[in-house]
């Protein structure tokens, strides 16, 4: 007879079989048997967060930067509810997470027991799937399936809720890692006919654009290589969503920068005027499309996505191709090479006018800002950070707000998986714990969280985690004492009624850093900025960098609410002619 294992042992046997190296978690009554078992499994290290949300975001940072699923371990009740924000964030941004939560013993479920909540009920809409384990015999099968669901198709979070009595009960362990398709949920359904059609459109197009998204990152490093090949093979211009940054080199001449609400003038105008739009792994999010009715009115739209429900959800497309973007791009490249060798040079003349137009838009220099030698402009701070860290294979995380958009605009990424930001859910407080997870995955790399002073305070307790595990993360705070993006909207849309967007009584971040046992650095003027940034990079300890920036600076360019792509606000000089009126005000 084979050996019997307790539920807690089975959890670890499964994690070992899945090659899990790190768990991000926080103990509590209903997961104590699992925590008790931790000591017997040396290959798995537990990272103790200071809040379950932090554990979740750290696991997201780990997953996004390493390509492996992140594992979270929390207790029942508040442990699980605190993890909900991170699960929802991962769901929106398609990040593979496996969350294991403790639950009150089976016989107490439904009695409003201490620290009981309906965890599977609460997390049902924010996970790809979840399970309440009612029989220890199902446990190993469920955990392996959980990993499979999280990592296949369009990735996302899953949750396994394990009652405490199940963690004690004993049964046999069944290693059931399956590689088979799950209910046909893996979609690689495209055929050569569709690829031929796409190639034909590419050949016929005189104003093409590639619009790429997070799907390219999720498809793995190979997808980024194929994308580069595709772009050089076609000579087409390329723009990327917030989540897709890094899949194509940010400093390349064919790259038009990010598109969308705070995207560049050239990217948005090219999207509006193109005759062929090839969407690769993006999802026509409302921050990208602006006003749907006037979104790229004259183009033929092709959408390549692994998730069939992403297609035709927001924007009707002419040619949907359901499949893993790597495999689709590979087919396109093969077909293109076979049927149209030397396509880029033969097509050059056809798209030359288009490129001229793009250069015209480029000359507007929409990311420009008026620099100052007295106060640090936030854009300048990010440009300096970029210049001083670009040779280091730096990993950047962000919080949410103005600083996030400035980081996306001014920090140029050359490799995938180097950029971790909360795009879909827009979770303030994401960046600091995410940086913890990134540094765990890449202990020798430079990891910087570009933060705002308001966002970072939402999860500042995770500095303690960074110190405990000697993670030299750098928290680069653009401190303007405002919730900057809120203030910007109030300025533009609410007659400068800055309702509750100013934070009084902010902590002294330098002293705060010292209180946590890390290093605090403050930069007040542009003159000292470079030196201080270098100091930050050279400290082999966690750093909180308090960069005091211009308090009134707004993030431009901006597509105002309810406007199409070709009506952008470009900056202080442009605002008079382009007022947001009436309807636009009520929009989010």
């Amino acid at each position: 007879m084979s050996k019997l294992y307790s539920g807690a042992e089975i959890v670890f046997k499964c994690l070992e079989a899945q090659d899990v190296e790190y768990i991000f978690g926080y103990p509590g009554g209903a997961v104590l048997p699992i925590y008790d078992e931790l000591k017997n499994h040396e290959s798995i290290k537990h990272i103790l967060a200071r809040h379950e949300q932090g554990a979740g975001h750290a696991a997201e940072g780990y997953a996004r930067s390493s390509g492996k699923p992140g594992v979270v371990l929390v207790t029942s009740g508040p442990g699980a509810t605190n993890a909900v924000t991170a699960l929802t964030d991962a769901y929106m941004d398609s990040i593979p997470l496996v969350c294991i939560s403790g639950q009150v013993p089976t016989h107490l479920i439904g009695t409003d027991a201490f620290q009981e909540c309906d965890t599977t009920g609460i997390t049902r809409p924010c996970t790809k799937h979840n399970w309440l384990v009612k029989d220890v015999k199902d446990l190993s099968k469920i955990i392996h399936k959980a990993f499979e669901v999280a990592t296949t198709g369009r990735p996302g979070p899953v949750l396994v809720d394990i009652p405490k009595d199940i963690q004690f009960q004993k049964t046999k362990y069944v290693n059931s890692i399956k590689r088979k398709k799950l209910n046909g949920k893996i979609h690689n359904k495209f055929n050569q006919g569709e690829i031929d059609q796409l190639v034909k459109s590419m050949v016929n197009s005189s104003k093409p654009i590639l619009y790429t998204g997070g799907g390219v990152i999720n498809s793995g490093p190979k997808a980024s290589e194929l994308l580069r090949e595709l772009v050089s093979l076609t000579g087409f211009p390329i723009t990327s969503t917030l989540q897709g940054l890094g899949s194509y080199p940010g400093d390349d001449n064919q790259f038009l920068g990010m598109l969308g609400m705070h995207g560049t003038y050239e990217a948005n105008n090219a999207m509006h005027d193109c005759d062929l739009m090839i969407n690769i792994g993006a999802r026509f999010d409302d921050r990208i499309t602006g006003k749907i009715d006037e979104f790229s009115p004259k183009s033929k739209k092709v959408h390549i996505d692994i998730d069939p429900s992403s297609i035709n959800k927001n924007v009707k497309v002419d040619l949907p191709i359901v499949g893993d973007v790597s495999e689709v791009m590979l087919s396109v490249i093969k077909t293109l090479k076979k049927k149209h060798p030397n396509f880029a040079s033969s097509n050059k003349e056809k798209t030359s006018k288009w490129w001229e137009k793009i250069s015209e838009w480029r000359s507007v220099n929409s990311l420009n800002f008026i620099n100052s030698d007295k106060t640090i402009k936030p854009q300048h701070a990010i440009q300096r950070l970029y210049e001083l860290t670009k040779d280091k294979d730096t990993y950047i995380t962000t919080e949410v707000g103005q600083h996030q958009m400035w980081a996306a605009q001014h920090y140029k990424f050359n490799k995938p998986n180097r950029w971790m930001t909360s795009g879909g859910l827009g979770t303030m407080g994401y960046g600091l714990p995410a940086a913890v997870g990134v540094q765990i995955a890449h202990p020798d790399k430079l990891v910087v969280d570009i933060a705002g002073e308001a966002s970072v305070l939402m999860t500042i307790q995770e500095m303690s985690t960074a110190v405990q595990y000697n993670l030299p993360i750098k928290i680069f705070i653009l401190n303007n004492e405002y919730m900057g993006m809120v203030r910007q909207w109030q300025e533009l849309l609410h007659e400068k009624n800055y309702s509750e967007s100013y934070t009084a009584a902010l902590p002294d971040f330098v002293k705060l850093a010292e209180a946590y046992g890390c290093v605090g650095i403050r930069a007040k003027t542009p003159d000292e900025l470079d030196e201080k940034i270098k100091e930050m990079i050279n400290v082999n300890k966690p750093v909180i960098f308090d960069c005091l920036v211009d308090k009134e600076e707004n993030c431009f360019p901006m597509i105002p609410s309810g406007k199409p792509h070709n009506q952008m606000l470009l900056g202080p000089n442009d605002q008079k002619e382009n007022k947001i009126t009436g309807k636009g005000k009520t929009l989010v």
Partner: protein
Amino acid sequence: MSKPKSAYSIPGKKQKSDTHVIVVWVDNEAGVLARVVGLFSGRGYNIESLAVAEVDSKLNISRITIVTTGTPQVIEQIKLQLGKLVPVHKVADFMRGDKKIIFKEMALLKIVGNDIKRKKAIKFCKKFNPVVLDKTNKSVVIQITALRREIDTIMNDLKKTGLVSVSRTGAVAMTRGAEIFK
């Protein structure tokens, strides 16, 4: 419903809504109905009626029939979103009024009244396969199967014959002829 949740994208031209019947085959496991129904409420889709029961006890498969209204785009989304749920095996959809499909609802009607009224009530139901399930000298319970609109009409007619209680199921559907849902 076709209003997007984010007002940022101003709703475009409204397309015409149609009533569709969506049939879903699912693993009969805890919470599966909540997943399906939660998907509808969470994304703002309508449920006009719902019928669900296990149809294969060996394979543990339940069949859910949902009547819903939406624009072609919304119906397409419903099907694709349902298809993504892990316990869902397949999804079929057709328009209400599709000639190739039969669909029926059942209703139990309780009539309280004198002999004349009770007989009259049974007569009204004649077209819809009435079965008398229970009867006393004061009351009768009639089972009928019909279309939704037909049951609506008959309920109206039966008001004057002493209808005191109605219990209705959601619609269930099946293809005509030898074909089955794919």
